[in-house]
């Protein structure tokens, strides 16, 4: 062939074809029981066209089970799955317009890269030239142009995952499902690949569901994050909202680093050591949650305040570990301008906090930074 098919296919041909395949996913009251235990319990979610939604949770939270049910590999005990309004709940995987990328890439080792990607196209009985063109486009999309003749074992871990991605994308699925696709890769590669996948996903505008237990991955990639615990949804929001306004104590503790102070609210005041905050909540037990970056420190006199256990300098900021009233450990992120030595006393001065009772957010508030106190000014606090 004198002209390579890649030249024949205009730049961006892949994208224009895919625009018609964008789709909406609707999950209604999905439930999956294994014996007596419910792995997924009454889970509902709408995923919009072109949106990337991340299912985030600890292992055993049911996130992979949800993904596998959407892909058709597990049968829901009850509930409905719709893609573009079409009920796919009872369809087998081969008849669903979904493409799944597995944690262990799951490439077929008896086929070369080209045949791995072409297999689905061959099943659809496309013409050979058409298959060749599509496979080469897909390879180019994932940055592996010219790798078609390689055997899968000749590729690195990252390249294998790219081939797996190309294998899913070449069929132009309506929904792309990614099941912890980078878990087996090292940190550096993981970060690079997740940027690439996000970039490709946005370029194709493909509706994507992504399962991970790594919060960095979720925060970096997702349009929206679904935080799961014990098969139930704790919160669904944009990454910054999930981080800054966690709706449950679990989410507060699961994403990022968080200080929890436990006390009983009496007479509308929450007291912890010499810290006293007026709260507009009914009296009773409550948990005060403060991010390290929202916890200011001020030098304290005598035996008041908390004891500094360790102070770690990270250059841009200093992380101070303290032991407060009742042996409670807290972390505070301070600016390098003011140093707290080990063994010295510091007064806790939170600026942003959330109050939780029975796992639910019942109040949140902002306090002015007290004079003489030192903290990092963050744009979010003024926003």
């Amino acid at each position: 062939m004198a002209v390579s098919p890649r030249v024949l296919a205009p730049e961006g041909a892949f994208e224009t074809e895919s625009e018609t395949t964008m789709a909406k996913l609707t999950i209604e009251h999905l439930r999956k029981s294994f014996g007596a235990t419910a792995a997924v319990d009454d889970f509902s979610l709408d995923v919009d066209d072109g949106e990337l939604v991340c299912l985030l949770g600890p292992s055993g939270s049911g996130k992979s089970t949800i993904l596998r049910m959407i892909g058709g590999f597990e049968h829901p005990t009850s509930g409905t799955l719709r893609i573009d309004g079409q009920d796919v709940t009872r369809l087998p995987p081969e008849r669903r317009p979904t493409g799944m990328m597995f944690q262990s890439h799951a490439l077929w080792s008896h086929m070369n890269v080209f045949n791995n990607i072409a297999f689905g196209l061959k099943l659809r009985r496309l013409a050979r030239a058409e298959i060749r063109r599509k496979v080469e486009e897909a390879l180019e999309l994932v940055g592996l142009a010219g790798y078609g003749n390689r055997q899968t074992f000749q590729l690195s871990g990252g390249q294998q995952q790219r081939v797996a991605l190309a294998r899913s994308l070449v069929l132009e699925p309506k929904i792309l499902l990614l099941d912890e696709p980078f878990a087996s890769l090292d940190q550096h590669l993981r970060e690079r690949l997740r940027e690439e996948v996000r970039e490709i996903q946005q370029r194709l505008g493909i509706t994507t569901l992504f399962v991970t237990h790594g919060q960095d991955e979720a925060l970096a990639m997702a349009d929206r994050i679904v935080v799961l615990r014990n098969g139930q949804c704790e919160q669904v929001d944009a990454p910054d909202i999930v981080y800054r306004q966690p709706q449950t104590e679990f989410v507060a503790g699961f994403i990022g680093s968080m200080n929890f102070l436990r006390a009983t609210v009496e007479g509308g005041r929450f007291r912890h050591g010499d810290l006293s905050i007026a709260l507009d909540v009914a009296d009773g037990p409550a948990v005060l949650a403060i991010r390290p970056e929202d916890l200011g420190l001020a030098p304290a006199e005598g035996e008041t305040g908390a004891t500094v256990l360790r102070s770690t300098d990270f250059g841009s900021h200093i992380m101070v570990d303290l032991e407060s009233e009742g042996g409670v450990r807290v972390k505070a992120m301070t600016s390098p301008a003011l140093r707290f030595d080990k063994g010295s006393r510091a007064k806790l001065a939170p600026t942003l906090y959330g109050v939780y009772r029975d796992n639910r957010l019942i109040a949140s508030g902002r306090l002015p930074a007290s004079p003489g106190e030192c903290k990092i000014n963050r744009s979010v606090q003024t926003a």
Partner: protein
Amino acid sequence: MTSRSAPFAIRSSRFDWTGLFFAIVLTIVIAVPLLVVVTWAFTEVWRYPSVIPQQFGLRYWQQTLVRADVWDALWISIRLSATVTLLSAIICLPAAYAFARMKFPGRDIFFLSFLASHAFPKFGLLVAIAAIFLKLDLIATFWGVVLIQLVSTLMLMIWIPVAAFQAVDRRMEEAARDVGASPLRVFWSITLPQAGPTIFAAVLLTFVSTFYETEGAWLIGAPQIRTMPVLMISYINNQIVVQYGAVLSVILWVPSFIALMFARRVVSNGGFAKGFGA
């Protein structure tokens, strides 16, 4: 240079006496009897106490190869082995897949029962089966021998393929379903090629072991159905002419040698080890 710091350098620089010793012992144990048999096959006169035969020749080859019963036996042996292997594959491979992939009540007991047929002294089992076959008029028939030999292939053809199927990554199969393959297509295009080398080794082993199976073939088949090994035994029993047995032995080596050559090529990628659960 100490052995502690550079074990690999040591291995190449110093002569491996232990290795040589084992190589020699193995050669003596394996090769010498083979050599003796091959020598006998080409010997016309070999009297004690001479170390090498007094007269070499192809006389006994000629005498053996002109006999019609030899060719009959060879033909029967090939037909038997092919039939048994084919039937065994048809019965056992789907069963092995079921054992490897599906959960059903009594799975483990079923699975172990295949081993059980090998846990008894085989001859006792054969005699019991022969008594049943006698009533069913299967004694001294082709299909009687097929059935009896089928029993002894079951374990090999179930256990090795089960391990082979189990070694196939489930997610590979799921990925194939995901791109649109039906369950049957997945089996054909993914599972079978993945498990292929190991299964081929099992098929080959089944063919060879059936080809050389004697007890069942003799007990059920005699006198009408005489396979090559049975014929060889009768030669050795009836006439004290060592050369007949030796010539037949050499002839019998041919198929197993070809099979082993095949197996080596197919199995070199570790599929065989996988078959045994490695």
